[in-house]
């Protein structure tokens, strides 16, 4: 109808409008499923609500309680451990990628095999590692028993459980970083490598001064996905330890789930407060990276 009554308007503004029309479906989805829930969560965190009855406004009480909650600090601390140790996936992925970046018969098969853990579900990864660690029929306690004389059940001991879960997470994450670096290595300019060779660069100096700078975009993406992966870790904890023993392996996202949605969770407002804290932490990291990325793009 509009086109008939005002044919000139569409013609005149077609170029300006078209991108917005193409963007509209995505933007509407983003508004409904991302932006709106963020504000709703922040709003909910100021209420006490069991998910069933009436909501009661309690101001910042949820946040005050949170600061007084030992489980919150355990979760925060575990998130930090996750964040730091998950970074190991980047050098590990780079190492595997460099190792696989050669032309021998059947290399594609080896590449696929190394990428395999990223393709299977995190739930399956969690189960495999749980059985690997399991006292009784898992192999790792037997290995410990052989060397030290005492079988250690990683997931039953609150000192080691978090590290055990992170080790399981590193397996697929390394594969992810590897694939990022492999694609990066494909784009390395052979001229520069050739030129560096002429200047007698090899080994570490070649890697450090020639290869790595060209892999910077891959490193950047690997860093971002690893940080996000570490902060949103949930499935592995849920499968491997259910947050235990004694709540020692909880991270913020699992803590939030437990408070709001699990069998014993009726504290929607409290859960929302945890979600807001987690969101704030992610926001800091992500905006730091975006700012850096933008400034680099401008300088380039």
């Amino acid at each position, binding site marked *: 109808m509009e086109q008939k009554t005002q044919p000139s308007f569409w013609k005149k503004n077609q170029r300006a409008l078209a991108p917005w029309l193409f963007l509209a479906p995505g933007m509407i989805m983003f508004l409904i499923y991302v932006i709106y829930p963020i504000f709703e969560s922040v709003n909910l965190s100021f209420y006490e609500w*069991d*998910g*069933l*009855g009436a909501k009661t406004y309690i101001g910042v009480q949820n946040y005050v*309680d949170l600061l*007084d909650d*030992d*489980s919150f600090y355990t979760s925060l601390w575990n998130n930090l451990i996750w964040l730091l140790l998950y970074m190991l996936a980047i050098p590990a992925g780079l190492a595997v990628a460099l190792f696989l970046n050669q032309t021998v018969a059947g290399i594609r098969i080896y590449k696929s095999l190394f990428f395999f853990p990223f393709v299977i579900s995190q739930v399956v990864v969690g189960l495999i590692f749980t059985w690997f*660690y*399991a*006292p*009784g029929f898992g192999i790792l306690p037997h290995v410990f028993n052989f060397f030290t004389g005492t*079988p250690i*059940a*990683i*997931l*039953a*001991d*609150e000192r080691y459980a978090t590290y055990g879960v992170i080790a399981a997470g590193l397996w697929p994450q390394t594969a992810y970083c590897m694939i990022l670096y492999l694609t990066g290595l494909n784009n390395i300019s052979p001229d520069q490598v050739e030129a560096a060779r002429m200047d007698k660069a090899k080994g570490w100096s070649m890697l450090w001064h020639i290869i790595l700078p060209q892999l910077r975009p891959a490193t950047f993406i690997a860093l971002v996905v690893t940080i996000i992966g570490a902060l949103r870790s949930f499935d592995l904890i849920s499968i491997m*330890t*259910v*947050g*235990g*023993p*004694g*709540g*020692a392996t909880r991270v913020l996202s699992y803590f939030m789930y*437990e*408070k709001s*949605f*699990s*069998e*014993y*969770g*009726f*504290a929607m407002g409290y859960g929302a407060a945890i979600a807001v804290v987690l969101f704030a932490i992610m926001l800091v990291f992500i905006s730091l990276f975006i700012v850096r990325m933008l400034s680099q793009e401008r300088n380039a």
Partner: protein
Amino acid sequence: MTYFKTLTGMALGLALSASTALAGEIVLNSDQSDPAPKKAMEELIAGFEKANPDIKVKWNNFDHEGYKSAIRNFLTADAPDVAAWYAGNRMAPFVKAGLFEDVSDVWKDAGLDDQLKSAAASMTMDGKKWGVPYTYYQWGIYYNKDVYKKAGVTEPKNWAEFVANCEKFKAAGVDCVTTGNKGGWPAAGIFDYINMRTNGYEFHMDLTAGKVKWTDEKVKATFAEWAKIVPYMSANSNAIDWQDAAALLAQGKAANYVMGNFAVATFKQGGMTNDNLGFMIFPEITAGIPRAEEAPTDTFHIPSGAKNKADAKKFLAYVASPDAQTAMNGILGQLPVNNKATAADDPYIKAGFEELSSAYALAQFFDRDAPADMAKAGMDGFQEFIGKPESIDAILEKLQKVADKVYK
């Protein structure tokens, strides 16, 4: 993601089915997803439809775990006429939110106050009845008779003997007590029993209701008793599922398992028979304290948003009747709540019937007697205690801190 889709699909299906429910049809939501409970429900519905030919039952059977979160949605969004749930504090959030209908009249009309006496207290809140119980099961100690024989140990008469036996089991290279505490609740059963045997039923109820402090000397006494057997418990019990620990008992690597009667099927799958699987009542700790038992009760309720409440009440009355409970529990392998019903001819069910009918009082179970957030914190604490019994004071301080918030 597929799981979520199934749920949404189910919710959508429910919405459609409920809105098209005819007069003379009741919609029933429940979570009998395992084979035996499913068959019991089919029998129950068939029996009800036979007794009330003008009423049809539309049954939506949910996955057991998914039901726990689904019920919150369907009670508020699109209520069925009858919903399955649990007694005690587990129904408190729904009762307080006004989502369950008062069914005191069903109890009165059918004379249930007398017939369902043992479960009356756990169905009552604010002086009203909020549902009808249809089954419960006992908890106790399941033990491997072969292991007892091998270690030269006889069934203990009290706690001191039980603890003394543990030393002998250790000498025989067997775990005295096993449990698979990854889920947290198996240890809650041990705590409930030791606390009820040390301090009595009233104290246990006061504790779960927040009337006494976790830092109380009496609670410390309970954990002191528990600490006596912690060194003899299966190592790493916090990392394994309860079924895996059941295997330890069946294989003769452990002697005793504090469990609910539903575990008998698992023990038998592991190769145990009526000849070598023994059952005993949890031994006495403080002499002279009246014996209370755990008997988690499963129930049916009418949501306050139900459309066909008249027929739903007929269904509840039928569920409560002796015949229906005899038939249903015969298939479930559990105990009927109605005292006029007959328990099945099975040694463990008979033992459970003896145990519960002679008990001074019945507890529901830690996570049904205590409010949800307290239950969760408590089970975390028990896990921690099993791992590090020496840090009990810090654990109790932590629990009291949670309790201060939960029961304010």
